[in-house]
């Protein structure tokens, strides 16, 4: 097994390489299992075939901070500090990147960041009007007016008390 001092190289879909501390990379389950499969081999390069460099960088940034904060706040307060960081982290990401990121994180199987990204997407649905959600995510309404009215009527209880945004 690799010690936590070790480094690993993550290769993006374009072939760009990122050298990362094992302590950071081990949060990506896919990296962990690839490395376990080729235990003993000196080759520490993991290809993340479908993930663009931009997302590899984001994911590394997230887990680097995660690991650092965890070390620094071992005595307590880690969760609060992490939340603060997550807020800043999400502020830099636009909605297209959010989609790319959720696919990348899902593929890499990185639970903590996956929750963060899913929560961020869900926030753009929660407490929003149907029109807002369609507009924000670019969903094309393929219902006829009658169909839509019928569906709304069927689940009328769920539409009471919405603050339109």
């Amino acid at each position, binding site marked *: 097994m690799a010690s936590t001092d070790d480094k690993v190289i993550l290769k993006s*879909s374009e072939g760009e390489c990122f050298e990362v501390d094992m302590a950071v990379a081990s949060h990506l389950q896919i990296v962990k299992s690839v490395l376990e499969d080729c235990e003993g081999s000196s080759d520490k390069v993991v290809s993340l075939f*479908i*993930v*663009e460099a931009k*997302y590899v960088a984001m994911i590394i940034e997230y887990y680097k901070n995660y690991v650092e904060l965890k070390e620094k706040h071992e005595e*307590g*307060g880690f969760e*609060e500090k992490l939340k603060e960081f997550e807020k800043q982290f999400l502020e830099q990401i636009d*909605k*297209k990147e*959010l*989609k*790319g990121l*959720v*696919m*990348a994180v*899902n593929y890499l199987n990185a639970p903590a960041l996956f*929750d963060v990204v*899913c*929560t961020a*997407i*869900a926030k753009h*649905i*929660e*407490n929003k009007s*149907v029109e807002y*959600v*369609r507009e924000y*995510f*670019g*969903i*094309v*309404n*393929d*219902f006829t007016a009658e169909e*839509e009215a019928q*569906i*709304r009527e069927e*689940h009328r*209880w*769920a*539409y*009471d008390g*919405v603050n339109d945004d």
Partner: protein
Amino acid sequence: MDMDNNVDMFRTLSDPLLIIILSFLPFHEAVRTCVLSKRWSHLWRETTNLDFNENFFVKRGANEAEEVEKLQRNGFISFVRQFIVNYPQKGIQRFNLACSKPNDFPEDMQNFFSFSISRNVREFGLDFSCPTWREHALDNHDPVFELPLHFYEYKNLKSLTLFSCSFDMHKFANFNVLKRLSLGWIQLSVDSIKVLLKSCPILETLSLKKCWKMEHFEICLPNSNLKELVLEKCEFVQHWFLFDGPNFRVFKYSGKVGYFHMENQSDMVEADLDFSAETEFGEVGTLLYDLLQELYAVQVLTVCSVFLQLIPSGEEPFGLQSPLNVRHLNLKSALHPNEYWGIKFMLKSCPLLEKLTIHIGPANIFSDYEPPYDFNPRDFWSKYLIVESCITRTLKVVEVKGFKGTRNELYVIAYMIQLGQVMEQLKIYIVNDGEITTEYIQRAQVLLQLRKASENLRISFC
């Protein structure tokens, strides 16, 4: 990865992934996505976060007859019935049910239990209380439903909520991976709490709401894993509270003032104290003073109007002898002159304060309030000032929620603007009251004319 500029952001995401995202939404919000497009019309039926609440279906207006209510409740139960019959997923994260007449549907209740267990539920909640029961009233309502015996055999629960549902605490030993337990609308005793905590050794959160007949409250348990305790509007024969063993991170209490004894709470991060149940200005300031001293480590503290009125009548009128570690202070206040001394007291006691949030709202204002010293509310914030060190040195952000621009509100906010030397942000949330709102906004403009003590201060209205 496909990053084209196609309008539909979800187009390339798979259904299973969308279902995971939907499961992060409250259940009724997930249902609402059915109307987005044809693709979405059935996705919600697979969310793993199930929360069935009759209050969405049963409208309790004064005009609604019992018959109507009954019909609406039948509609609700048949919706749940349909949902679980057609549910395609193998596992669920959460199953919550709120229904005030469970005994009208005995067969369905059994089905809901079987369904939840068969789907390996992690978080399970039953709320059989009725929304018409009043939380502050002393009339207690005996539970009408009992947790079925076979449910205790199910061992995978991480979180359990039981409101107005009776249970056998001696069988809780099976729930040994339980991390969160929330009980409400039930009679409990100090001994039953002891049994519960021993049965659930890794329990991290215990929340009791509107529980009654407890002699007092104590948790004396070495090596306890309990991190969060919430006591909400419970009824105690004697209001004394003893905690020895658990290192709480979060402590929330709402109810009457009592005697609190906490052994070394050095890990506590957050505390919320709500004593709005107190109806008269009694001699309990010392008890609050002592409680505050025990919360020395807390970083986020929330106190209510009653607390602010009572705290200066304790041991010291101006502040704690040994200061607090609070960085973020929440005041639930009416900003009434009765609370002025208490607000000063808190500012003085929090020399490291970085953020202050004032939630303005109605409060219990004591007519028999006695200030520690006579004062004139009009010049309290401007004359003979002793300015607290947090105001000149550490306070960066002030938020005022529920702003209407009354004179009292303006006095307090002006104090922060004119003396807060390191203030960076003042955010004022103006109440939306229809036509009068423009008047509130005008009053808020006055604040922009004031001389700011900090060059970096940005004032914003929302």
